[in-house]
């Protein structure tokens, strides 16, 4: 199992000759993504920080999506999830995703509620 590697990334767009080559290819890809993130974080283009999608800045959406992309390639190629059986991969990936999404949902909604309470109630928190 572990000896035969799937050597394609980007859904077969890029096919490597050996596993070693694939590793370097993934490294280059991850470095590019990190560089883009850092560059955007330093420049902070105005059209990205002033437009919102679902209540969050577009820039932050880009950061989060790029993070998930990086996480995907680390898990799939460095942790060899690409070469594992489908059942094992799904168990590993979807269980935490489900639990974390639930956690994010309840905690962030609660925090937002507390924020409105701080703002609208009759007690001042900055005295």
């Amino acid at each position, binding site marked *: *199992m572990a000896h035969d590697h799937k050597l394609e990334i980007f859904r077969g767009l890029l096919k490597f000759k050996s596993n070693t080559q694939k590793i370097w290819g993934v490294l280059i890809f991850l470095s590019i993504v990190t560089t883009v993130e850092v560059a955007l974080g330093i420049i902070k283009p105005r059209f990205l920080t002033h437009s919102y999608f679902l209540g969050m800045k577009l820039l*932050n959406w880009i950061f989060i999506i790029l993070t998930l992309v990086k996480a995907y390639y680390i898990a799939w190629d460095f942790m060899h999830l690409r070469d594992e059986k489908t059942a*094992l991969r799904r168990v*590993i990936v979807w269980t935490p995703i489900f639990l974390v999404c639930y956690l994010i949902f309840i905690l962030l909604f609660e*925090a937002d509620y*507390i924020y409105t309470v701080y703002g609208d109630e009759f007690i001042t928190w900055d*005295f």
Partner: protein
Amino acid sequence: MDATVSTGTEDSVWGGGNKPLGASYGKMMMWFFIMSDALTFSGFLVAYGFSRFKFIELWPIADEVFTHVPFFHGNYPMYYVAFMTFILIMSSVTMVLAVDAGHKMKQKSVILYMFLTIIGGAIFVGSQAWEWATFIKGDYGAVETNSGRILQFVNAETGERAALADFSKTLPEDRVKHVESKGIWFAGEGYQTSYSLNEVVEGFKATPNILIRTEQLNEEGEKTLLDRKESLSKILEANQVVEGANLIHNEYGHRLFADFFFFITGFHGFHVFSGVVINIIIFFNVILGTYQRRGHYEMVEKVGLYWHFVDLVWVFVFTFFYLV
């Protein structure tokens, strides 16, 4: 791994020896651990999100907090963290290369790549220690108000942050550090600031080009700058000087920011540290030829899984602590 042992139970599903997921026992347990650890880290990061959403208008801007690079003076937001991220990804790569060499039973290459991985991990832990030291030591200094809000100072002419030393007066007063042995035993001071509150306030009143910056974020996503008149009335609310950050006071802004910084990066740094230790143990086993004799390098693969996981967590910490 592929050895066939005849136990007479091959036809029975419950007879043992089945690997329905195609992974060995040890690897499965490593994945179990990684998943539970991932949920722990998610708990921390979501708790950070909780506190941040609760104080969304007051939260410090990470770009203004982490601006230092070792051996360089000046304002370089994020460069050093980006470097740390790169180091960790790089050591992840050498780890995969070690696993790959292990599959091919090349002992010499495994040794080399494991060594490089350990070096990368050590550089990362060292960088994190430096980040902590810089964060604890502080930058410009600030004052804290009665309600626990932080007021920072800005030079009105240049628009840049002003350090306490730039405008504070040195007054002929003698303030001794309060130690537990000379007074009430439960009321010692951790550290004494370089200027007393009185010196900062008097210096502020005497220097007309210094303005106060509050924690409040305005619509541009920047901290609110008060004019001179507002600043003069705001400074009266100050009740202590804060230099640097600890678990109770934080000159960069909301104290929870410092708490989460210490907690999350500390917990991650501890993971990297234990990863380095485990890597060293495996490294010596490789040198001794343990796995060469065993016939497979699955142990390197398992420790590799842990190492990549540490990298994976850092990718998220980097995003949610430094970028977003």
